[in-house]
Structures are given as C-alpha cells and as structure tokens.
C-alpha cells in the first residue's frame, strides 16, 4: 500500500510540473514567440515597401475618394440618404457627368461645396467616373433589391423567405388544429 501511494504522488508531481511549464508558455507567449520576432520584422518591412501588383486606376481612386467624401450622405451604393428634417441627399441615378461635377464644385442645397483646394481637377474627374459607375454598377448575385442594405434584406427574408417556408409547411403539414 505504502509503495503504491508513493508512486501515485510521484506521478502527480511530475504531472503538476508539466502543467506548470505548459501554463507558463500559455500565460507568457513572449517566451514562445521570441524566435519568431525577427521574421515578423521582415514581414512588416515588406508590407511597407512592396510594389502593387495591379496599380490603382481612375475608378478605384475615385471609389476611395467617393467613400471618404460622399458616402456619408449619398451612401456607399449611391442610393442617397436622409438628412435631418426631411432634407435628402438625392440618389446619383440620372445625373450627367457635368451635373455631378457642378454639384461637387458648387454645393447645391445642403451639400457642401468642394473647391479646387480640397479636390483637384483630376480627383474631381475620378469621383465623377466612380459616381457614373455607381449609376450602373456590377450587379452580381441577382436582383439588387434597391441596394439599401440590411433593412431591405431583412424585409425580403421575412416577406419572401419565411412566407415561402410557412406556406410550404402548411402544404406539407396538417392545417387543422
């Protein structure tokens, strides 16, 4: 009996010390990641200097400008949006390139105007290019349901999806309660 008890204690001590070592490595990841550190350094260096495989084009520069300057009111998809007190930022649909450029420079209604100091002529052209693209964007994946985002999607999920499923269930199951 004595011997068995001793052995058990012995094993548990070894187990405990192993556990402590494992916990140390888990709790202090720096112990384990020291070797990786220089590798991470080169990674960061690379990402600072690496060359773009595909350069930016007018559309992608215009898109970046559009998202930072225009999307707060006109929405990322160009569908327009509401402002306070019944003022609306209109959807971009239907405006010509000249009208869009004039609006950016002139700032009609509530819209702020963007002079040549904040948006250069080149950038103006790029934003207009992207705005024209948004009037008829690449529509993958089926009916765009207004491009208004999750509000419409939730509506469709209930009105189309859930209704179809409930109708199907009523067809499969018994309707008399």
């Amino acid at each position, binding site marked *: 009996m004595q011997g068995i008890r001793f052995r058990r204690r012995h094993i548990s001590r070894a187990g405990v010390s192993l556990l402590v070592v494992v916990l140390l490595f888990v709790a202090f990841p720096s112990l384990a990641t020291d070797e990786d550190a220089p590798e991470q350094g080169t990674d960061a260096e690379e990402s600072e200097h690496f060359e773009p495989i595909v350069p930016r084009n007018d559309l992608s520069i215009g898109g970046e400008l559009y998202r930072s300057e225009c999307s707060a009111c006109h929405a990322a998809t160009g569908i327009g949006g509401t402002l306070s007190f019944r003022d609306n930022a209109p959807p971009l649909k239907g405006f010509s390139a000249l009208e869009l450029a004039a609006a950016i420079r002139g700032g009609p209604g509530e819209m702020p105007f963007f002079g040549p100091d904040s948006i250069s002529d080149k950038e103006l052209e790029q934003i207009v290019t992207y705005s024209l693209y948004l009037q008829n964007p690449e529509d993958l994946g089926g009916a765009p349901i207004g491009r208004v985002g999750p509000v419409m999607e939730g509506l469709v999920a209930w009105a189309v999806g859930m209704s179809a499923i409930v109708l199907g269930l009523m067809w499969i*199951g018994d309707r008399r309660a």
Partner: protein
Amino acid sequence: MIRGIVRAFDERLGTARMTREVLNKVFPDHWSFLLGEVILYCFIILVATGVYLTLFFDASQQEVLYAGSYVPLQGVQMSRAYASALDITFSVRSGLVVRQVHHWAALLFAASMVTHLLRTFFTAAFRKPRELNWAVGVTLLMLAMVNGFTGYSLVDDQLSGTGLRIGYSIVLSIPFVGPWLSSLLLGGEFPGADIISRLFVLHVMIVPSIITLLLVVHMVILVRQKHTQFPGRGRREGNIIGLRLWPTYAMKAVGVFFLTGAVLALMGGLIQINPIWMFGPFRAADVSSASQPDWYVGWLEGALRLMPAWELRASPFEVPNPFYPSLVLAGGVFLVLYAWPWMEARLTRDHEIHHLLDRPSERPVRTPIGLAAISFFAVLFVAGGDDVIAVWLDMSVNTMVRILQLLAIVLPIVVFLVSRSAIRLRLRKQQEKAEPFCPRVGHSRWEARTLAALVLVFVWFTVTSLSSPSPHVLPETWTAKANAGMSGAQMYEAACAQCHGQNLEGVFGPAIGAGTDSEDMSDTLIQAVVFAGIGKMPPMPGVLTEIQVQEVIAFIRQLQGIG
C-alpha cells in the same frame, strides 16, 4: 450476410428495440410543429456553406493591396480578410452563391427561430414539464444572434466595420468595466489588430459548437418528453395522435429539408445580399449612410436610435446613455424570456403538467401580452431602419423618430387592450352559443369602442403631425422663439451685423451691400447660406426660422436699394 451483421449489432447494443422505438415514435401533424425542423435544416445548410467559405477565407487584418479581378477596387489598400472575401465573390468557383446562401440562411435561421418561439409561446408549449427546453431554446436564439453578428463583422468591409464600431461603443458604455473590457476584446483600441481573428474563432468554432450541443440537448429532451398537441377529438393529456416517424413522418421531414434548401438556394441564387464589393474596405474615418445591422440585431439598433439623449447619472458615476437601450434592454428581454414559464406558473398558480396546448385565440391575457411584445419590437425594427424608411416615405426623419418614440410606448398598450377585448368578446359569444340564456355584461364591447376611439385619436395625431410642417420649415427653437416679434432690422442687428457691419459694409465678414456679389445672389441662395453656413460663417439653422430669415433678407435688400 447483412442479417448477420445486424444481428451482431443487436446482440451487443440492443439496437433493434431502440430502432423500433424511434421509428414508431408518433409526431402530431400540425404544420406549426415543423417550424423547429426548419431551424435545424437552416443550421445544417449554414454549416455546409460555412465550411466551404472557410476554405477560402483568410481571417487576417494584415494590410494588402487588392490585386483581384474587381477593377473598381484594384490597388486599394485593405485587410486580407476583405480581400479574401472579394476573391470568394469574384474568383472562387460558386463562391458568391455559397456566400449568399450562407447569408440568407443566417437570416432565415434567426427568423425561423423567432417564429418557432412565437408558436411555443402562444400555444403555451413551454409549460411544465418543458420549461427547461424553453430555456435551452432561448439560449439558442441568443447564440444565433451572437453568431450572426460575428459573421457580419468578419468580412471587414465598411458596413461590417461600422457594425463592429457600434458594438464596441456598447461595450464601452458598460459602467466601470467598459473601457477595460473593450480593450480586452479588441486587443487594444478600436479597431485593433486582433478582432477579426478572434471573431473568426468565435464564429466558426466556439459558438457553432455550443449551438450544435444545445440543438442535440433540445432534441433529446423533446424525444424524452414527447410532443405537445392541440386539444381535439381523442386527444388527451396521456396520448399523442399523429403520424409514426416511419414511413410517413420521415418523408415529411425530408420534404421540409428540401423545402428549406430550395427556398435558400433560390434566394441565394436570385436575390443579391450584402454586396460587399460596393461597400469598400473598412476605414475608421468613413461611414456610409444606410448602415444597418442584420434584422435580428435591428431591434437593438432601433432602440439606440429611439433612446432620448438623457444623461442618466447614478451619482457619483455617470452611466453612458447607450448602456440602457442596448445591454439593459437586451438583458431585460432575455431575462423575461428565460423567466416566463416560471413566472406564468407562479402568477396563475398553475403547477400542473400540460401536454395539451392552449389555443391562442382563447387566452385573454397571454396572447395580448405576446402581441404587445411583437408590436413593441416591430416599432424598434422600423426605428432601426428609420433613415431608409424616411426616404421611402418622403418624411422628416426627426418627425419619424418622435412618432416612433411615442409609438414604442403607446402601441403595445393599445394592442394589448384591443386584442384582450377582442378575445373576451369571442369567448363570450362562444359561451352564449353553448348556453344561450346566460346573463351577460356588456362592458367588453364598451371597452372595444373606447379603444377604437383612442386609436382614431392617435391616427389623427400622427396624420396631422405628418402633414402640418411645410417641407422646409425648420423647427422653432428657443432662440427662434425669442426672436418672435422682432423686425428684420432688429434681427439683422442681432445675428448678422457683428460680421457684416451695421450698413452691410463688412467687418470680419465680407461686405454684402450694393455692388457686391450678394446683390446678385437670389433670396433662396442667401437663405441657403444662412442655414448652411459658408467659409467662416457659421450655419444658423434654429437661430432664425425661415420666415425670420426672409424678413432679414428683405431688410438687406432694402439697404442694398433693391427692395
């Protein structure tokens, strides 16, 4: 040979008896009992499509320059997470349709859960002995919301980043521990460098595992406790009338699976959902209008939008305002849901075991409470999309928020009272049919009439508040009210003269007298400038009403020698 193998299994595990029991299990046949199955099948489809997406998704926030096939984003800096999501959309074979099916399945997973919960609530299937399974179900709903939100935030486009930021603000608003907790979650300040990979682990492993476990628990308890059924001929507490699992019910179950799969495949293939390529990469400085969460979180978004800007101070500490409409509301809602079976048993003193269901149309208290809750959440949902809906209705978003704030309180009460008297009326009619000569008290009809009047008054109020303000009249503020009765000259003196001078000669601001550009500006343009501001000139909406501005302009024209 086959017989031999089957016998070998049976001798060791007793499979024959078990199989016979399972195959002979009886299911009641009402269609609403199939809603739970839809949840299960949505989950299976979610896992299947999710595994496929995991093969190509790269949950890393390391910045790269996009070099994929979508031209309008080429060369743009973005995280690898977003870049790989774009690749799934544009390059991976059937990646887009799988992603769309996955997203629609997530929406329907939550929708079928809510429908199933409503069925259970209104028919009182949660009563003893099924309280525990109700609690498991409520936990599943909560986990579905959590997993939906993590999935929505994973893509790292502008929309998902905006959602994440709102989530971050909500965590920040927790009293005392908020800032520490949020930096613990994000691994630093927003947006941090770790959040996508952490959400990824939650989204694809931890939460789905718990959901799987709880779904199994839910079904094991269901099999053990057997199904409830509606009362009817031959149906008693002690029996179940319905179809055996084999062959009829199994075929129905397969049918439901294909139904769910077909609906999801059709939606994923035909209806665009979450067009991430149009939202662009997440930038902490940008935000797009019409940014909303998916519908199952939409009620919390609505509550955030409806909550008045009160600063509630639990002295000496300030509790940030977003804490109440988000965590307090969600905590309260789930607490009530969890506690409901026990609460109801306590209040009605009904501690009996029930296997027969209630008919919702015959319960004059529980059904109205449920309907009132639905109307409350409906108001919150509308509020969550108020910016989009305001454009659809061509309505002031501010008016809409006011109306919805009122509705969030009034509508549940009205719905409760109306439905209660409707059910009582119905019950009384049934009773009359059974015993035609019993004496009756007519106050229920009276109640209904009063309520109808109340509803009419409310509709009238809404309609008038909608139609009365002309399109561009700004609200009267305290300053504008203080100006009432002042002449154009006095208002010019008070609001404009400091900068433009007593006689339009210009002091800090430009001269606006005769011969200047202002003379050529139309009244509308001047009015726009006053309200919107220009250059160093501050915008003045609320300082002057539209009519007051017109009076000021008339005064300016007078000085210019035009008016």
